[in-house]
């Protein structure tokens, strides 16, 4: 569970979210929606501990994110960015193995248990057959799944994803959203991801959060969403 209190998030001088309080539940996939530039990514970066909030606190499993060491944070929150990783000569298994970094020794040697975690993570996203494929030979959807497997291998109670469905075709988007909901429910994890797909958010997620600067609306009503996205009923 991720709880935040009096949270203010800014990008430069721009206040994106002001004095918001609420929580993202465990075993739920929450879709973070909002217009371009509303501050979805900035909010996710703050929740991941990459950026500091302007004000307020974020607590994960009851512990203040700001008081955690980098290593402790890495064992608590995993993050999948929008950055596409296309490195030649780097196998999927190596990338997913990097997710074990918070648990490995100074040079990152994988134990048998780590290897099993990597295999399980690849299996969970349906990419077991791709373990020895290199990252430059795969489609966008496959790469995205590997990056999610990496987050799973990190074995954290919280997984945050920034627009995981972009670059994917329509069936791919629905599949991925289903996968993320499954990960949340089966693993009891708190999954939060930003998306522009309102349909996916409504049909495949357990909850919706809306960023409408300077407000962060948890579980907004359909009317509010329609207003923000200028959706009108055409008869």
């Amino acid at each position, binding site marked *: 569970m991720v709880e935040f209190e009096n949270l203010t998030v800014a990008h430069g001088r721009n206040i994106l979210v002001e004095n918001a309080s609420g929580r993202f539940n465990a075993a739920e996939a929450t879709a973070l929606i909002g217009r371009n530039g509303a501050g979805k990514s900035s909010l996710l*970066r703050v929740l*991941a*501990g*990459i950026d500091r909030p302007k004000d307020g606190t974020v607590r994960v499993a009851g512990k203040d994110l700001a008081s955690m060491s*980098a*290593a402790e*944070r*890495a*064992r608590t*929150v*995993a*993050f999948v*960015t929008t*950055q596409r*990783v296309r*490195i*030649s*000569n*780097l*196998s999927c298994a*190596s*990338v997913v193995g*990097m*997710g074990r*970094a*918070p648990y*490995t020794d*100074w*040079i*990152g040697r994988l134990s048998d248990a780590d290897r099993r975690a990597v295999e399980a993570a690849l299996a969970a996203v349906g990419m077991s057959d791709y373990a*020895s494929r290199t990252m430059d030979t795969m489609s966008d959807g496959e790469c995205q799944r590997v990056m999610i497997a990496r987050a799973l291998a*990190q074995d954290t109670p919280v997984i945050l994803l920034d627009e995981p469905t972009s670059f994917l075709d329509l069936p791919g988007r629905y599949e991925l959203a289903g996968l993320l909901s499954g990960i949340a429910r089966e693993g009891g994890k708190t999954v939060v991801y930003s998306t522009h797909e309102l349909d996916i958010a409504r049909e495949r997620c357990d909850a919706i959060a809306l960023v409408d600067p300077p407000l962060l609306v948890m579980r907004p009503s359909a009317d509010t969403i329609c207003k923000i996205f200028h959706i009108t009923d055409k008869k």
Partner: protein
Amino acid sequence: MTGAGRTYRLFAILLAVTALLFVVDMTVGSTSLSIVAVWDALWGDADPTTVKIVRSIRLIKALVAVLAGAALSVSGMQMQTLFRNPLAGPYVLGISSGASLGVALFILGAPLLGASAVQVQSLGVAGAAWAGAAAVLLVIAAVSARMKDIMVVLILGMMFSSGVGAVVQVLQYLSREEALKSFVVWTMGSLGEVTAPQLVILAAAVAAGLLTGIAALKPLNLLMLGEQYAATMGVDLRRSRAVIFISTTLLAGTVTAFCGPIGFVGLAVPHVVRTMFGNADCRVVMPGCIVLGACTMLVCDILSKAGGIPINAVTALLGIPVVVWIVLKNRN
């Protein structure tokens, strides 16, 4: 696993080739020697002149080649990984232009103040080059500590080194012929100016740089995925950046100080290693760079001696096709 077996086999082959090239390198020079003659001379079993040539000139030069090749290649790997840019090399941060400035101030600046070029040179070009390289890196590191985005650091480094290059040009323009020539010769690079006591310093600095590099291997590997990913996997970005900068200064800075700026090796070797081993994992690429870097520099030295041309011309002629290949390979 077959992959691991292949990796070890490749290392064994590369090590054997390096050893062979090391001996061949010592046979080439103004007087050609057979491999047997070199071997005997190494153990003191030859006439005193040959023993002297092999032991105190060729052996040292071959060792310098090994150290320089290994150090520049590892430094290139670090910069390519840190900046996630295939065309980064040991000199992207301005280490070579910093070293050039140090040497230019030393060789060109001192005569302007009344000392003769020859007097000044004996004082130690290497020290001036190292001071210049370290000064530039200090500035970059100070800027980098305030910058979140590593790309800004890369651009600043490149601009800073162009600026420093302009200052060097001004110094060149103002200098007298004698001083200018010794500066230009330094910029062409040479593996042969290192004395036995200097070799000890070079070896110690390279060893320290490699050990620092090994200590930073885990964060370096995670940085392959980008700084955001690395940060969320527990990497302390500022600390890792600093450690990697220190390692690169020790490696590339020291080699440049003693041998002059040697281009293309640090840029090309890491790519060849990644392709050869089929693995981008820095824990494989770094030892690969050490061995293949040494190999490459020995080949360059052999060609340089055989053709009587400066080492920098050889590394460029060999390195440019590799760089073109990288660009073409990364086109998609």
